[in-house]
């Protein structure tokens, strides 16, 4: 039997007789048929529904018929399901009619682009406040942690240094080696135009030791370990582990954030040193490959170029870069609320913010060193 709704009219009274399958598989056709029926009922004061001809009905079909009756009722028509014919279908329709909830009017969202930009801008002071508040609490945690060392999870420090430092060594080393090669090639091609290839070793030392070594290492660590830390802490937050720590009288910032930040501040400089050495090797390889400078002469020039100032300029900033990665990653993790989706969102934000912060802090140091003439 094909799906249809027959309408028998007698004056201002009508009987609607749905026939065929009113089920999920035919829901689209059923919805169209029901809509067509509504148009044919104009001018009727009373509408009866006879379900005897229904071939099959399930929840989806019942919803469509129930809503038709609701709409007819709302227009002031008297509706009635004919008793006795197909009681299961009648019960199903009645169930969906009586369980209809009054819904609040949908909120009208202002979706204009300007309004969205405004809303985002309005959030900025709050976010800055959150970040400052978190930094302040972390700063306050340091003297407290010193006063009561038991409130910090020191046992996790070796494991964290292993995960953040040793495990990241291959990827940071590879990145630094490649950057060293790039500076080498760049130096040869640009300085070579002025016959100044002999300055390539100094360029590699200055560029990498002072700026690129700490920066490249910190960006790789932010992407790798920052994401790991943020997702770990965010997962702990959404699964109430952070609340459990608080309930046991342990302050999460001291217990979790301090050892993580410390591990990063200790390991990022170590990774940077290894990276610096590999960048020198990369620069040597690139220069030796395309110029006539001997390895011995290159090494001699490199040794002469390495000064305490260059070394310190990079060495001073790398613990701060590690620290900011830890603060951003842990801070974002602790802000997670909700479920799995929040963990993903916070991790993404943590990585983006950590990389950006690393670049900003690195530039501030460079600016400061330039000011004081180092």
């Amino acid at each position: 039997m094909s799906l249809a709704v027959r309408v028998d009219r007698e004056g201002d009274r009508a009987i609607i007789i749905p026939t065929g399958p009113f089920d999920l598989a035919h829901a689209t056709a059923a919805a169209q048929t029901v809509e067509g029926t509504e148009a044919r009922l104009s001018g009727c004061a009373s509408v009866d529904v006879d379900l005897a001809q229904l071939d099959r009905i399930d929840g989806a079909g019942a919803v469509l018929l129930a809503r038709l009756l609701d709409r007819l009722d709302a227009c002031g028509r008297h509706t009635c399901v004919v008793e006795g014919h197909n009681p299961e279908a009648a019960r199903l329709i009645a169930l969906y009619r009586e369980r209809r909830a009054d819904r609040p009017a949908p909120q009208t969202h202002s979706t204009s682009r300007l309004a969205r930009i405004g809303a985002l801008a309005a959030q900025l002071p709050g976010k800055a406040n959150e970040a400052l508040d978190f930094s302040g609490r972390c700063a306050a945690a340091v003297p407290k942690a010193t006063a009561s060392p038991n409130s910090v999870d020191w046992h996790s420090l070796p494991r964290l240094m292993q995960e953040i430092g040793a495990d990241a060594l291959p990827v940071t080393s590879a990145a630094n080696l490649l950057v060293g090669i790039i500076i080498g090639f760049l130096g040869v091609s640009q300085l070579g135009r002025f016959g100044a290839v002999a300055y390539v070793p100094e360029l590699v030392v200055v560029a990498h030791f002072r700026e690129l070594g700490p920066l490249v290492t910190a960006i790789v660590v932010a992407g790798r370990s920052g994401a790991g830390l943020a997702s770990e802490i965010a997962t702990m937050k959404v699964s109430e582990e952070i609340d459990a720590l608080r309930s046991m009288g342990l302050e999460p910032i001291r217990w979790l954030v301090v050892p993580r930040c410390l591990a990063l501040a200790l390991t990022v400089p170590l990774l940077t040193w290894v990276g610096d050495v590999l960048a020198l090797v990369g620069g040597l390889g690139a220069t030796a490959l395309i110029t006539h400078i001997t390895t011995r002469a290159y090494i001699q020039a490199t040794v002469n170029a390495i000064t305490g100032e260059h070394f310190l300029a990079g060495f001073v900033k790398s613990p701060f870069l590690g620290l900011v990665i830890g603060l951003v990653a842990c801070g974002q993790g602790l802000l997670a609320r909700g479920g799995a989706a929040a963990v993903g969102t916070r991790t993404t934000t943590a990585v983006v913010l950590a990389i950006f912060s690393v670049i900003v802090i690195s530039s501030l140091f460079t600016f400061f060193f330039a000011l004081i003439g180092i």
Partner: protein
Amino acid sequence: MPLPRSHITVDNLSIGWGSRVLIEHVTFHVERGTIFTILGGSGCGKSSLLRYLIGLEQPGAGRIDIDGVGEPHRYEGMPPFGVLFQSGALFSSMTLAENLALPLITWTPIRGAIARELVQAKLDLVGLGPFAEHLPGEISGGMKKRAGIARALMLEPDLLFFDEPSAGLDPISAVELDQLVLTLSRDLGITIVIVTHELASIFLVADHCIVLDKAAKGIVAQGDPRKLRESSEIPFVHNFFTRSSPAASANQGG
């Protein structure tokens, strides 16, 4: 053609993990349109049995046959039954309405206003009409379970599986959920299989039950739970239904 009375037939089924056997040579059937409960203490394998019934695991020995489905682990295509997992298992990045629409969009060509109407009707059915645009993280545990039921109902199945529906709920929410289960069974004619150990819920809703025991590695009793409570002479079943500990009954007996 009338549908067969038996909706699920389990024949000589054995299940376990690795070398650990949980249930051996179990045979039972679930009648169409009834509320069937699988009972037992913690660790007796009732949730594992559910995983086999819904086809997540392949039985090593024995056979499960669901009418119209065949062996559940071999079934491909639109799922012919709905499952409510213990925590509701809603996707946390989607609103309730999006969670409910997912099976509809995946398996049917229904879209737009009709899909929204069907989703809203199911949310209304479980009493969550005003929460369509909420995320799962914003609603309570009981509401998540009700939303899980609404999602399980989206494809109009004639068979539902519930894993511990009232676990972790307050008594009022638990009773409301039981009433919903009764409505689904009586008004929609759905066969419902429930894994639980909540006694109040069992006596209120169950038509038939099987009791699994860890030591016996199988069914130790089956039938109407109210009759089992009154007349079972098996100590484990008696203790289970009367909430008494083996030590207490031994003291009484001796």
